[in-house]
């Protein structure tokens, strides 16, 4: 119980116990939701991930982001999407030409800095908005395949509980 005296000598008491109770509950809640995931990543503003029961956590920052209106590679805008698909001029044999060029650069950089097997095909982490169609994902995968990426880590929102 905290108390303060005024000019008239009267003591005003402030009951801080409810505040301590609220603080305790808040701290308990925040400690429960404290993330121990190896990587912390802020989602793209326009992206909403689908829910999954997977227990595997994100272990690297996504290289490709398929937002609602654009495709980004390492934060750099590569292609603008119209009606959630690429424009005909950006498409080549089902793949996305500019994306392929960017991923090729990424693959070369990965091989240059990789200490392990340089011939081993690469892995890409992809952030995708849940309302995108598989058609777009297929185009991205085809572009990546041509740039020597054959494994994909599809980002999802983990179900709690």
């Amino acid at each position, binding site marked *: *119980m*905290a108390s303060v005296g005024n000019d008239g000598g009267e003591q005003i008491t402030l009951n*801080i116990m409810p*505040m*301590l109770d609220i*603080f*305790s509950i*808040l*701290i308990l809640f*925040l*400690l429960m*939701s*404290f*993330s121990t*995931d190896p990587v*912390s*990543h802020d*989602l793209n503003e326009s992206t909403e*991930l*689908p*829910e*999954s*029961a*997977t*227990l*595997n*956590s*994100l*272990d690297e920052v996504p290289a490709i982001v398929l937002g609602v209106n654009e495709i980004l590679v390492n934060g750099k805008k590569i292609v603008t999407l119209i009606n959630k698909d690429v424009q005909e001029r950006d498409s080549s*044999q*089902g*793949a996305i030409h500019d994306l392929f060029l960017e991923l090729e650069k990424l693959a070369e950089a990965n091989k240059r800095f990789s200490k392990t097997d340089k011939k081993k*095909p690469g892995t890409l*982490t992809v952030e*995708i*908005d*849940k*309302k*995108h*169609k*598989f*058609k777009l*994902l*297929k185009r991205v*995968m*085809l572009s*990546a*395949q*041509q740039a020597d990426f*054959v*494994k*994909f*880590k*599809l*980002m*999802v*929102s*983990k179900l*709690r509980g």
Partner: protein
Amino acid sequence: MARHKKKMVSIKEDEVDLNVMPFIDIFSLLCTFLLFTAVFVSIGILEVQIPFLTNAAPPQDLESKRLLDVKIDVEMERVELTTSFTKPPIDENRQQFSRDENGLGEMHSKLIELRDEYEETDKVTLFVDDEILYEDLVKVLDQIKLRFPGDPGFSPQESGQGIETSLYPKVVMGSVVL
């Protein structure tokens, strides 16, 4: 003796105040730190792969065996599960399931049966219709890749990527071919 008794009574009558201010300071700092570091969306991953050409020879022991081949075709209306063997008799078997929660649950039970009967097959080839939404694809992937609490053989194991509860860990996106 009487003097000593009087002193004891006076101590009992005094109010003992606990200074809670340092306690509140620590709570405030802890609250601020936790609020800044709080992650309200926990992000997970589902691993898939696409077919690729390689010069490496297939393992000899697997080549000579008669293995089960599992294919799943995700269409707008339904999901089709096809099983066949790599060596004669092929014994191709097709089963169709609706794409709702019940249908996917039935497919999941069938996959558990197949996985437990043919332990060497850990791969599913997935064919997906172009118009399927990513969120629907994730629902199908969950049923293929994961064992849920209550499923036979559910035993979470620590792996390099966290807790592993795999049913079919390898999913190959068969429709991604040039």
